């Protein structure tokens, strides 16, 4: 593989494998399907995979309703075909693999190793990690040049911009392939360096932790914390509402990744966050986090 080969513009028939049918995996699948790309969605949990089809169908509707960025209803572009499997060896031909499993280094490393064994060398491997350095994950794949990070935000079918993380060993062809894929998905990439948490989560997760600590110490209520950020700073969502969208389990996992790699105590998950995760109050996806979402979902 050479840089020249990647520089030549070529039409690519994208077909995506998305690994992990959780909140982000189904969201990324929705984004791709809404842009007409076929997707094979993989998960080890049969029940999760069965629910994923309904979830994707609903999210496609939401993407259509909430703007042109997600679905393409009305533009004549059909929805891509969705396949599901529990067997990583049955991906078929794919132009890219997007890993979107739990934010645990050992889980991601295992899945990336298995995925890279299932596709030919030179196939783009994307990790949707929130915080784990790409060069660290690259240890688990035979062709580190194929791997890079694309940090989609939740919900990926509504947020147009992503962080694109280039690791020390990421090759030019992989970057070119990722930019081609993101263009097909209607996303804009901001290229950032490969440090724990990259840019968004290095800053955001610490802010969420501090915001939770403010509530824990009784300095302000969750409503008050977010009201200050939305009212005074004009943020669309405050830090705790944002944490509820991300999922508090993912927040704790990301903080742990950051703490372990930086030694910075500011990233140690505060007691209130840990309590909420232990109680199953994970945010929007469970109907309750720092705020209530009706209780039914």
């Amino acid at each position, binding site marked *: 593989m050479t840089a020249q080969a990647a520089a030549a513009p070529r039409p690519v028939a994208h077909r995506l494998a998305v690994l992990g049918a959780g909140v982000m995996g189904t969201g990324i699948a929705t984004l791709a399907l809404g842009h007409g790309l076929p997707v094979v969605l993989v998960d080890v949990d049969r029940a999760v995979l069965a629910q994923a089809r309904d979830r994707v169908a*609903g*999210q496609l509707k939401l993407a*259509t*309703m*909430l703007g042109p960025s997600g679905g393409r209803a009305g533009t004549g572009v059909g929805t891509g075909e969705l396949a599901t499997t529990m067997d990583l060896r049955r991906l078929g031909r794919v132009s890219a693999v997007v890993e979107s499993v739990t934010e645990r280094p050992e889980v991601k490393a295992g899945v990336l190793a298995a995925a890279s064994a299932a596709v030919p060398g030179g196939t783009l491997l994307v990790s949707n990690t929130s915080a784990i350095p790409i060069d660290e994950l690259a240890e688990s794949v035979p062709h580190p040049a194929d791997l890079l990070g694309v940090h989609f935000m939740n919900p990926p079918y509504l947020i147009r911009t992503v962080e694109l993380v280039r690791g020390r060993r990421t090759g030019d062809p992989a970057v070119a392939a990722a930019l081609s894929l993101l263009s097909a998905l209607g996303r804009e990439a901001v290229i950032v360096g490969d440090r724990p948490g990259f840019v968004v989560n290095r800053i955001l997760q610490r802010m969420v932790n501090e915001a939770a600590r403010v509530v824990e110490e009784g300095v302000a209520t969750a409503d008050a914390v977010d009201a200050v950020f939305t009212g005074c700073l004009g943020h669309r969502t405050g830090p705790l509402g944002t944490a509820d969208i991300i999922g508090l389990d993912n927040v704790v996992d990301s903080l742990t990744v950051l703490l372990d790699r930086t030694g910075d105590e500011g990233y140690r998950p505060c007691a209130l966050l840990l309590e909420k995760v232990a109680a199953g109050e994970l945010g929007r996806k469970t109907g309750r986090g720092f705020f209530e979402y*009706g209780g*039914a979902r």
Partner: protein
Amino acid sequence: MSAPVHAPRPDEAVTRDLLAFLQRRTRTQVAADVDLFGSGLVSSMFALELVVHLETAFGVEVCGPDLRLDNFRTVEAMTALVSRLRGGGDG
């Protein structure tokens, strides 16, 4: 079999169901003409729950050009949508 004379019109039943659903989910008494998104009562993400509720409660399918936020902005708009998708009903 004819309906009893005091039976509510079908669209009134839809309105009542939607008001009850919203009260349950938002714990707020909602008026049929209030802008649910504009008032900040629910976020636009809640639109998906409204779609799912309409489809499961009233046996309609919302798709294509009907997937517009304006169709879900008020209880009145949703009632009209259900009425239309049911083939006009009495609306």
